[in-house]
Structures are given as C-alpha cells and as structure tokens.
C-alpha cells in the first residue's frame, strides 16, 4: 500500500517536473528564437516614450522692471469624435460659451477630415472661458445617470502657453509679436527670438515607474530687460497720437535716446497694434516697413542733416564758426539751380546764421568747399547708407549716393548737404548726431539693457561706433546749434534747459519728381547741452496744418522734452549748477 502511494507520488512529481521543465525549455526556446528580436524590439518600444520639453519663452521687461511681454496659459478645446455621442449639444455649448457658430462646429464634427479622431474646435481660448466650459462639463457629467453617457462626453481641454502683452499696444513697434507657432516677428521678439525661445529638450522617458529618471530641467528662454522706460514710452505715444491729430499728419515717429550710451528710452511710431491680437497685423499695416518707421522706413530728411554737413565742414577745416559767405538766394550746381527754402537771399551769413535760417545755399557752399571726397567720406563715417546695428529686426540702411554710382550727379553734392537726394532712417540720424552730442564719439543705438539667464543678469555695455569728428568740433557745433535755436526763439526751446537742435522740412520724392504741397517735417535735438542726457527725434509725415518742421515737429520736440526731463528726473540747468557746486 505504502509502495503504491510512493509510485503515485513519483509519477505526480515526474509529471510536474516535466511540465516545469517544458516551460523552462519553452522560455529558453522563445528567447533564442528568430522572433525574439521582434519581441525585444516591441518591448523596447513600450518601455520608453519620447517626450519633448519646451522651455517657457523668456519675458521682456522695461528698465524699471515692468513686464512688457510675458506668458499665460490658454486652452485648446477639442473633441474625441468616438467618445462624443451628443455632438449637437457639444456644438451648442461650445458655440455659446466661446462665441462661435454652433452650426459650423456641428458640421465640422459631422464631417471631419479622413483619419481624424480628435478635432480641434477652438484654440487660444482664455483660461477664464475654458474654466467656465470645464465647470459646465463637470456639472453635466455629475448629473448624468449611472450607465448613461454624458452629453458633453468627449469634450477635451489642453492647456498650453501663449505670449501675452499686458500693456496691449504700448511699445508695439519696438517689441514685435509672437505667432501661434511661437516664432517672433519684428522688433525685439524677432531679433532675439533664439534667445527668448530657448532650446527644447527631447528625452526618452521610461514608462516603468521603477526606472525613475530625472525629468530634465529645461532652462526657460532668456529674459530680456530693455532700455525702454515704460512711463516715458506711454507719454511719448500719447504725444505722438495727439500731434498726428493736431497737425493732420499721416503718420509719425518719435524716438528718445540717451546720446551718451545709445540706450533707446522710448520709441513710438504710428500706427500701433494690440500685440495680443497679432492676427490683425495685415489690416493695420500695408507692408513690413511700416511696422517700425524709426528703423525700417528711410526718407529724405531735409535740413536735419545740416547738422552733419556743418560738423564735417568744421572738422575738416573747410569752415570755421566765423566763416562767412554771401547768400544770393540762388546758386547753380551741375546745371541745376539751388534755392533757399523761402527763395530769398539772406546776404552775409556766418555758420550760426546758416543753421539758424536753415539756408540751403550755405550748405551747397560748404559741401563745395569740402569737395565730394571729403563730404562723402564724413557722411560715410557718420554711418549714412549703412545699418546702425540697432538690435531690432527689420532695419533698413537707406541710400547715400556717392560719386561713381550710376545715378549720382554733381548736383547731388549740393542737395545731399541739405538732406535731399539722400535717404536715411530716424535711428541713423540719431546715431550720427550722437557724435555731436557726445564729445565726437558716436554710439550704437540699442534697446537691450540686460539679459537674465539661470538666475544671473548680464548687462549690455554701451558700444561706440567710431569718432567721425573731434571733441572740439562737437562742442563748437553744439554751441552753434543751441545759439541758433535761441536766436530763432524756436518752438523747440524748453524752459530751464539749454537745448541744441535742428529742424527739417523736406520735399517728398515720387517716381516723377517731388510731390507738391506736402513735406516730411522733422526735428532732432538734445539737452542739456553741457551734459546731454536725452536726444529726441521727431518725424511727422505730410502734416497738413503746416508744412514746416519749425511749426510742427519743433513744438512736438518741446512737449516730449518736457515729459522726458520730468520722468527721467533731469533737473533744470540752474539746479544742476548748484548740485555741481556742492
């Protein structure tokens, strides 16, 4: 009996052993079979998931830490078509909540593109609206009887970052915008797109929670601090808008810069657009050069360029402050007659008189005294016809014809000297004039004050673009310009502050000659003359109230200068003298 049991046990043990051995053999066989590689490949595919970690786009601040461009969360609202049983209700709810046409939404869901299981109904939905919609879905789900499908089943919400401009249209010409794909267009957003966007990182993340790997730290895009003063920017934009209305100008540009460092403190151009609605770009602007006229739209500036002509004449020794000439009201150059703005003869004049009365004949005389080589050599060193290197996207170089060019004629030497036949941008003239304001040293205009990355701030130093004239010439010319404004009782004078500057009234060229009755009115000025802290450029296009820069652009300059001295805490000259004595 006992032996019988022993046999049974042995048979059972043998059977179990055989089964076990078979399993082990099968495991070994499978692991070494030709299909094993396929299984391993499939397994590897499921083990990890490739995830892309996108950095948050860097923010943009003004010089006082006010946020000009940040990020916010917006939502994509979509529907899983297989799960959505009541498409009519979904269309109705989404349409009403988001202000869309429910019929369109319903048609989209009923006729989706081939192969689509998830359909986007709306994107860039505000967080508030998305939250309302989510709450509605939650309530509907809760009120649905057990075993029934919710009427809003299949409705999905996906959060993603979106660029946001808290100041709306403020400094829009300078900032540029970011489109839905995250690419920067115009201004700072385009120029520093790579820095702001940062670098996305792709990582294979194991799905097995046992194999914990570090989620890589994706550094955010670089934060930028601009040289812009937000309050000054707002004031300048306000003045520009009022000036366009007051003087009936088609468009305008005002730039405020620190002539010692090249820091742009405010830059306003018209028209502006709300950057949060960047998709309106096409309706606001006809072409790209209109986005920021200060850097992208070269024009014939007229008499403001006389500052550079006189600087060149004084520096080259072709003239001295006391040099005089007899203004006969008309001079012939290269077969063309050059006349003053008022077609009058001004008699014996010195350099101060030339600038005070803005005499074209005088400039033709000075350029002739210098000769083409010297004159164009100086204009070249002043940067005319070249990019300034301002750190904004879309800068235009303008055009300075020089002897040897097919379209250069001898008369150009005379007309270029008073700002006709040469095209420049406001920022080019500011850079060139900074040499006069800044002891002969020309500064490169820029908007980037500092970069913040990984908790460290890197300040951007001022960059100098050469010294086209000597310090003596710069001081002498500044005094001449200040005296000429004072003698003229210019509308640009600012009470309590000594200002140097020059008006400009230029005819507008067309394909068939100059347009009659319309002008570009400009003014460039800086102050205080003995220690310049601001330089302001005003350009009003086709003002209808008056064609003269002295009656339109000059008072705008004064208004901007008044705001500037208040907002930048620049005391009047007499107070500064007192401070210096202490």
């Amino acid at each position: 009996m006992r032996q019988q049991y022993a046999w049974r046990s042995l048979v059972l043990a043998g059977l179990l052993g055989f089964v076990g051995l078979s399993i082990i053999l099968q495991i070994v066989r499978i692991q070494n079979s030709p299909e094993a590689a396929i299984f391993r490949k499939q397994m590897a595919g499921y083990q990890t998931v490739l995830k892309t970690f996108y950095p948050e786009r860097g923010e943009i601040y003004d010089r006082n830490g006010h946020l000009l461009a940040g990020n916010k969360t917006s939502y994509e609202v979509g529907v899983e078509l297989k799960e959505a049983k009541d498409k009519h209700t979904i269309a109705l709810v989404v349409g009403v909540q988001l202000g869309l046409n429910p019929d369109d939404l319903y048609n989209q869901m009923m006729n989706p593109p081939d192969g689509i299981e998830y359909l986007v109904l709306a994107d860039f939905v505000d967080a508030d609206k998305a939250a309302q919609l989510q709450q509605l879905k939650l309530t509907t789900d809760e009120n649905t009887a057990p075993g029934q499908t919710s009427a809003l089943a299949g409705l999905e919400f996906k959060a993603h970052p979106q660029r946001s401009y808290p100041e709306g249209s403020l400094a829009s010409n300078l900032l540029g915008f970011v489109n839905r794909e995250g690419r920067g267009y115009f201004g700072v957003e385009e120029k520093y797109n790579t820095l702001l966007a940062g670098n996305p990182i792709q990582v294979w993340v194991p799905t097995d929670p046992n194999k914990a790997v570090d989620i890589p730290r994706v550094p955010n895009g670089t934060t930028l601090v601009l040289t812009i003063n937000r309050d000054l920017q707002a004031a300048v934009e306000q003045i520009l808008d009022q000036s366009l209305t007051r003087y009936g100008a088609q468009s305008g540009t005002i730039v405020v810069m620190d002539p010692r460092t090249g820091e742009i403190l405010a830059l306003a151009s018209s028209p502006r657009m709300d950057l949060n609605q960047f998709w309106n770009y096409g309706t606001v602007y006809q072409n790209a050069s209109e986005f920021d006229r200060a850097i992208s739209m070269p024009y014939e500036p007229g008499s403001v360029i006389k500052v550079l002509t006189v600087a060149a004449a004084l520096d080259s020794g072709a003239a001295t402050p006391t040099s005089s000439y007899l203004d006969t009201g008309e001079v012939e150059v290269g077969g063309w007659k050059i006349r003053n703005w008022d077609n009058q003869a001004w008699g014996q004049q010195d350099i101060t008189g030339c600038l005070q009365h803005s005499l074209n004949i005088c400039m033709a005389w000075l350029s002739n005294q210098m000769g083409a080589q010297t004159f164009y050599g100086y204009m070249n060193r002043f940067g005319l016809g070249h990019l300034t290197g301002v750190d904004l996207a879309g800068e235009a170089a303008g055009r300075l014809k020089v002897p040897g060019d097919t379209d250069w004629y001898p008369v150009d030497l005379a007309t270029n000297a008073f700002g006709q036949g040469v095209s420049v941008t406001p920022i080019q003239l500011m850079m060139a004039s900074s040499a006069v304001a800044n002891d002969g040293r020309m500064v490169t205009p820029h908007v980037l004050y500092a970069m913040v990355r990984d908790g460290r701030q890197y300040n951007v130093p001022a960059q100098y673009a050469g010294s086209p004239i000597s310090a003596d010439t710069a001081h002498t010319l500044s005094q001449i310009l200040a005296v000429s404004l004072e003698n003229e009782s210019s509308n640009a004078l600012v009470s309590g502050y000594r200002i140097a500057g020059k008006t400009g009234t230029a005819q507008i060229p067309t394909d068939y000659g100059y347009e009659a009755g319309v002008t570009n009115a400009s003014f460039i000025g800086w102050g205080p003359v003995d220690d310049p802290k601001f330089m302001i450029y005003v350009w009003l296009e086709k003002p209808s109230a008056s064609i003269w820069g002295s009656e339109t652009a000059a008072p705008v300059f004064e208004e901007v200068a008044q705001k500037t001295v208040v907002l930048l805490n620049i005391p009047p000259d007499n107070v500064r003298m007192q401070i210096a004595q202490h």
Partner: protein
Amino acid sequence: MQNVNYTVNYFVHAYRQAPWRIQRQWIGAFLLGVLGLAMVAALYLDVTAQAAIYGRSIQDMSAEMIAIQHNSADLQTKLAELTSSSVMEQRAQTLGYLPVDSSQMDYVIVPGYSAPKPSILASVPSLTPSAASIPPEYTQSLIDWLDQHLRAPSANILIGVAQ
C-alpha cells in the same frame, strides 16, 4: 581514539534506528533555503513597490511643478495687466492726480542721494536637481545592484583597502 569511535558508532546506530532524522535535516535545510529566498523576494517586492510609488510621485510632482510654473506666469501677467501704464494712469486720475509739468517741480538738493538705477531682476541662483544629484540607490534595482557589485568586485576591495 576509543571515544571518537564510540561517538561515531553511537550516531550510526541512532540513525539506523530512526532514518527519518536525516530526511528531517534535509527538509529543514530546504525550508531554510526557501525561507531565505522568500525573505529576499519579499524585500525585493517591497523595495520595488516603494520605488514604483516614489517614481509615480516624482512624475506627479513634475507635472504639478509645470502646472505651478504656468500658474505663476499667469499670475505675473495678470498682475502686470492690473498695474499696466494705462490702468495706473486711470487710477491716478480717479484719485485726483494730474500730470506734473517741469515748471511745477521743485528740486531739493539732498547730499548723498543717488538716482535710482535700472532694475536688477536676477535673484540668487536657486539649487536645481540635475541628473547627477540622484544617487544610484534611488534608481537601480536589486538585480542592478548585485550586477554592479559582481561585475566590479575589485572596486570594493580597493575601497576597503583605502579605508
């Protein structure tokens, strides 16, 4: 020598009398082995389960961290909107303030006063975890650990010598 022979004979006799004692010894040894394996398995299971729980927690916290960062950016933007230039100007006007003209300003000389400088936005760099900061104890399995020590025994020996 006689004593040893006596003892051996005693045991041989005793096992002849009760052979189940040898079987019990074998079973005991086997059970001991099984118990040891069970303990290792239980320990491994516990460690693995804990690692899985913490791994999932890390994933959850990472997602939460991203959500908080987004929320922070939202709040920052909202704050900027509430303190934007146009809003602040409107508030100032509502409170009865007027824009000041340069002629209305009085300057007082304060010895030692220095004008405000542009903002310094950067804070002290924060410590952030990096790949190298997680020690292998938190990432490798028991098998990985055994494998590492079996493959590189010399490293431990060297450490032992150094100590």
